[in-house]
Each structure stands twice: as structure tokens, then as C-alpha cells.
């Protein structure tokens, strides 16, 4: 017999339930803080979906989160936890900027001026993550620790690049020249679908399909799943665990690197220290919530993209700190972590 408790358990054990619980808590927090809740909510809605511009900006944010999330679920299929999206994005943005500013890519035909920096960025993010994969294979280093540490290193590499005149810092024309790179040439900037929404969004949709197909319908995807489910058995059956581990980290990081490149080429147009501003961690959350499903990554990325935009709108228009949204995200993660426990307990209970 299904009791009310069972229903509640099942509800809370799903990602959607976790999100709803966390959002409710956020709403309560908001109502305690806002002078007027309706005003805060309307400012939130205005910031998220109020104007075509707001929608475009939110979708761009979602595209970045989706790429990192797709990278996360891909590696997670092989039971690898890549929490270094932030660093892979940083490397992607850094190298994309360097290629756009310091090579002649912009003079090439066929849109190569846009494609080459993006690919270089993807490759950079991929190699950054592959380093963690290599350490795992060769030295048994836990990838959680190495991807996290590599993120900090990448963060400071970007900082260094935009502070050093020998690297990417813009020429000091006046005392107010900030430690940032120059703007990338217009030949490297992504085209607009409907400003500010850029064409990278289409690439993200295509990549979501690719990731879905790779995971569900290819031999490589099956092999990833095999080592994810039982590495020892996969090894006995002759799979190259080392090659697959490094390969999937490369692919996972490349998606993060591409996200960083898109942030530069689609929205920011120049490199600043800390330009990734937490998107790598948000993308990780998106990947976690999606539980291995590529379509779900897109859904949660949209949710978080609109949440972030709404939070910013709320802070500006209604004076409610956007930290409310930050808190909500923290609660979502915790609710999902707890939901896992309820799910396991349910699975164990005899039917």
C-alpha cells in the first residue's frame, strides 16, 4: 500500500522534488528579506524573462551551464567526477582569447576566424582535464582533488595573463587602463541569432544531441558505462581503462573549454581575471541534477540560467541581494545530495 510518506519520499528523492523544495525555501527567504515580495518577484521575472534582451542573456547563460553539465555527465558515465569545470572554462577562455588576438586566424575565410579560437579553447579545456585523467591513470590521483586544484591554477593563470604586459594585458594607454585583455577582433565574435543570443547556443544544442547519442548508442559510450559500473570486470574483459579514462576526461574538459571560449566570443569580448565567475560550479550542479541525462542537462541549465538572470534583476531593481539565489543553489545541491540517500533506501526496501 502506498502511504503518504512513500509519496513524499519518492517526490523528495527526485531531482525535481529537490529543486522545488529548495526554491520554496528560497522564496521564504526572499519574503523575509524583501520590503515587498510582489515587487521582488516581479523584478525577478523582469530580469529573467521580462524583455527579449533578458531572455537572450538568460539563454546564453544556460548555454554555458549546459556545456559544463554535459561534460560532467559524460565523465560521470565512467564514474569520474570532474569538478574542475571552472578551471577548464578558464583555460578555454584564455586560449580562445590568445588565438583571437595573437594569430592571424581572423583573416581566414569560411568563418574559421570564429571556429579556430573556439576549437583551440575547447582543446585547452580538454587537455587541462586530460591532465587529471592522466594523473589518475599513472599515479592513482583522485580526480576530484586534481580537477579542483587545477581549477585554482587555471584561475591564477588567467589573472597572470591579463596582468602581464608580455602576455595578454591591453596596452597601457592611460592610467585607467584596466588589467584586462584587448577586445578580440570582430572576426572572432560569434554571430547573433537575436541579440544578445549568440550562435553558440545552436552549437550547444547540437552537442547535447551528440553527447546523448555517444552515451546511449555508441560502442565508446557502452565502454564508458562498463568501466563506470565495474572497472575490474571491464579490465578483465580487455578494455583499456587508461585510454578510456584519459579520453573521456579530454572530451569532458573540452566541453568546459568551449563554454569558456563562448563566454569570451559570444558575450564578454575580452579576457578578465575571474571571468568564469562560478559558472563552472553551477554547471557541475546542472550535471548532477540531470542524473546522466543529456536532455535533463538542457532543462536544468535553462532553469539555472534564468535563476541567475532573475537574481541579478532582483538585486538591481528590488534591492534584494542576489545572494538569495546563491543560497537557493546551495540548497538545491544539498537537497539532491540528501535525495540520493532516500532513493537508495527505497531501492533497498523490499517491494
Amino acid at each position, binding site marked *: 500500500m502506498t502511504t503518504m510518506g512513500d509519496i513524499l519520499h519518492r517526490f523528495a528523492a527526485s531531482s525535481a522534488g529537490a529543486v522545488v523544495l529548495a526554491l520554496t525555501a528560497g522564496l521564504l527567504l526572499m519574503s523575509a528579506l524583501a520590503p515587498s515580495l510582489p515587487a521582488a518577484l516581479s523584478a525577478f521575472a523582469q530580469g529573467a524573462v521580462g524583455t527579449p534582451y533578458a531572455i537572450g542573456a538568460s539563454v546564453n547563460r544556460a548555454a554555458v551551464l549546459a556545456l559544463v553539465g554535459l561534460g560532467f555527465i559524460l565523465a560521470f558515465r565512467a564514474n569520474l567526477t570532474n569538478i574542475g569545470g571552472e578551471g577548464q572554462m578558464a583555460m578555454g577562455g584564455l586560449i580562445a582569447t590568445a588565438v583571437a588576438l595573437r594569430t592571424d586566424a581572423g583573416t581566414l575565410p569560411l568563418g574559421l576566424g570564429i571556429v579556430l579560437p573556439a576549437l583551440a579553447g575547447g582543446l585547452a579545456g580538454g587537455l587541462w582535464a586530460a591532465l587529471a585523467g592522466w594523473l589518475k591513470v599513472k599515479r592513482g590521483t583522485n580526480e576530484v582533488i586534481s580537477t579542483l586544484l587545477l581549477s585554482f591554477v587555471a584561475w591564477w593563470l588567467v589573472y597572470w595573463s591579463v*596582468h602581464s604586459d608580455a602576455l595578454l594585458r591591453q596596452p597601457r594607454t592611460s592610467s585607467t587602463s584596466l588589467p584586462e585583455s584587448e577586445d578580440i577582433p570582430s572576426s572572432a565574435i560569434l554571430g547573433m541569432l537575436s541579440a544578445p543570443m549568440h550562435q553558440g547556443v545552436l552549437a550547444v544544442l547540437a552537442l547535447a544531441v551528440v553527447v546523448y547519442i555517444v552515451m546511449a548508442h555508441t560502442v565508446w559510450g557502452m565502454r564508458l558505462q562498463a568501466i563506470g559500473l565495474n572497472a575490474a570486470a571491464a579490465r578483465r574483459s580487455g578494455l583499456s581503462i587508461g585510454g578510456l579514462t584519459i579520453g573521456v576526461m579530454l572530451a569532458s574538459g573540452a566541453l568546459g573549454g568551449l563554454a569558456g571560449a563562448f563566454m569570451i566570443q559570444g558575450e564578454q569580448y575580452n579576457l578578465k581575471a575571474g571571468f568564469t565567475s562560478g559558472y563552472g560550479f553551477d554547471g557541475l550542479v546542472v550535471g548532477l541534477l540531470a542524473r546522466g541525462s543529456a536532455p535533463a542537462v538542457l532543462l536544468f541549465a535553462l532553469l539555472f540560467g534564468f535563476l541567475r538572470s532573475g537574481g541579478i534583476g532582483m538585486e538591481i531593481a528590488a534591492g534584494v541581494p542576489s545572494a538569495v539565489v*546563491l*543560497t537557493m543553489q546551495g540548497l538545491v545541491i544539498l537537497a539532491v545530495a540528501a535525495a540520493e540517500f532516500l532513493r537508495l533506501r527505497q531501492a533497498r526496501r523490499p517491494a
Partner: protein
Amino acid sequence: MNDALLIVLAASAIRLAAPLMLAALGELVSEKAGLLNLSLEGMMLAGAFGGALGCYLTGSPVLGLVTALLFSAAVAALQGVFSILLRANQIVSGIGLNIAVLGLTTIASRTIFGRNAGFTIPGFGKVVIPGLADLPVMGPALFMQSGFVYAAPVVALLIATLLYRTTAGLALRAAGNEPRAVDKSGASVIGVRWLAVMVTGLAAGLGGAVYSLADIHTFTENMTSGAGYLALAAVIFGRWRVGGTVVACLVFGVASSLQFQLPALGVDFLPAALLIMLPYLLALLAVSGLVGPQSPPRALTVPFDR
């Protein structure tokens, strides 16, 4: 390099190392027991905020310190609920706690202290040890510091004693390597893990309070700005030993202090960013086993379920 500059450098290196050392030694206890707390950052931030809040409300730095410990212990207890009770993914729940603590302390700080921080609280001053502070060079660097700096070696001794000279410590270390064996022996894996995470919470709170109660007497949003992650790196670089962790924190302290002092030394070929990333690079080398064999507790991050 002249003496005056060396004193400044050594004094700031030690001052910067102290909060890291307190938190890292606390985290070492958890990791020895098999728990990885990425929420160390959140615990420190909660400590820094609690310290400022308690002091702000009561005007007493001592009560501020008590509040700091209560706040960080609360975060540690939550981490314990996730890691031990719910057997949740320790990394995921740690990141979640960090984000939630950052959000909540930011909101609370604006609500309570007001938008334009700029407020000051009494806080702790420097404690000059008579006699010793007059020693040449190292005297002023070592013995004109806040009480927290003197507390760090004491905490190191206490934690070394706990880990290596008590039965609880024996069970605790075993829980991080062979939890099944501990369980069979009749000791409680769950119990020692709870002990460990609470010790971590208190030590991290002490470390976090350094920022708001000793370094500067106020609170700013995201005040710890990654110190917790640095402390985590120190445990790794210290290869899960008390002495190693202490040395790692001192190295990180020197690197951080050099970054501020290099211009004064006339060194401009070494970018400050390199020094700041040095701790993470060293930790990466350590965790790759490139500076000697790595020896993380075997059951680190593995939940225990009887």
C-alpha cells in the same frame, strides 16, 4: 635583504599561516577518519562571520570567539549529517554547504551590519611576549602576534596527541583505513567520525575567527576567499601528517606574504600570480606522488554503512 624587511616578511608569513594551520589541522583529523570536508571553506567563513556577529552584538571579543565556534560547529554538524548519517556524496554536499554558507553570510551581513560595511568591532590585539619579543629578527616576528598564532602550535600538539596517543585516535585513524575492522573490534566508526568532523568544525572556526577578530576587526563578504581550499591543499601537501601539514601551511604563508613583499624587495621578474598559485601546484605535485609516496587514508570519502 635588511633585517627590517625580513622581520616584516617573517611576521606576515606567520600571521597568514596561522588560520590555515588551525583549519588544516582540524581537517587532518577528519581525513584521518575517512571524511573529506570541502565545506572547510564554509566552516571558516561561518567562523569569521560568527566571530564578527558575536563581537558586534556583545562588544566582547571572547563572546565573539564563542559565537564563531558555535557557527562553524553548526556547519560541521550539517556536514556530518550528510557525510555520516545520510551517507551522501561528501564532495557534492561539501560544495553545496560552501555555496549556502556564502549566500547566507552575505545576506546576513548586509541585513545586520548594513550595506556599507565599514563597521569595526573590538577584536583581539597583539600579544607581546615580554623578553622573547626583544630577540633579534625572529623575536618581533614570532612573539608580537595575535593570540591565535600562539594557539596554532598548541592545537597542533593537542591534535597530534589525540591522533597518536589516545585510544579514540587509534580507532579514528583505523576508521579512515579499515572501517570494517574497527566495526568488528566493537568500536564505533560512526562515533569516531562524528568526533572527527566536530573537531574539524571547531578548529576551522578558530581559523576563520582570525580573519574577523584578529587580522582586521570587521567582516566582509566572502571574507575567507578560498582559505579553506588552501587548507585542504595543505593537508594533501603535508601528506596527511601533523608535522607535514604544519610545514605546508608555513610554506603557503611564506608564499602569500612574499606576494605582498616582493615589490618592496625590488623583485619584479617573479609574477605575484605564480606565488599565489604555488600552493595549489605544490599540492598537485604532492597528490600526484611526485614528492614522495602519497598516503591518503584508504577509506577517504567512502561512506560507512553497517
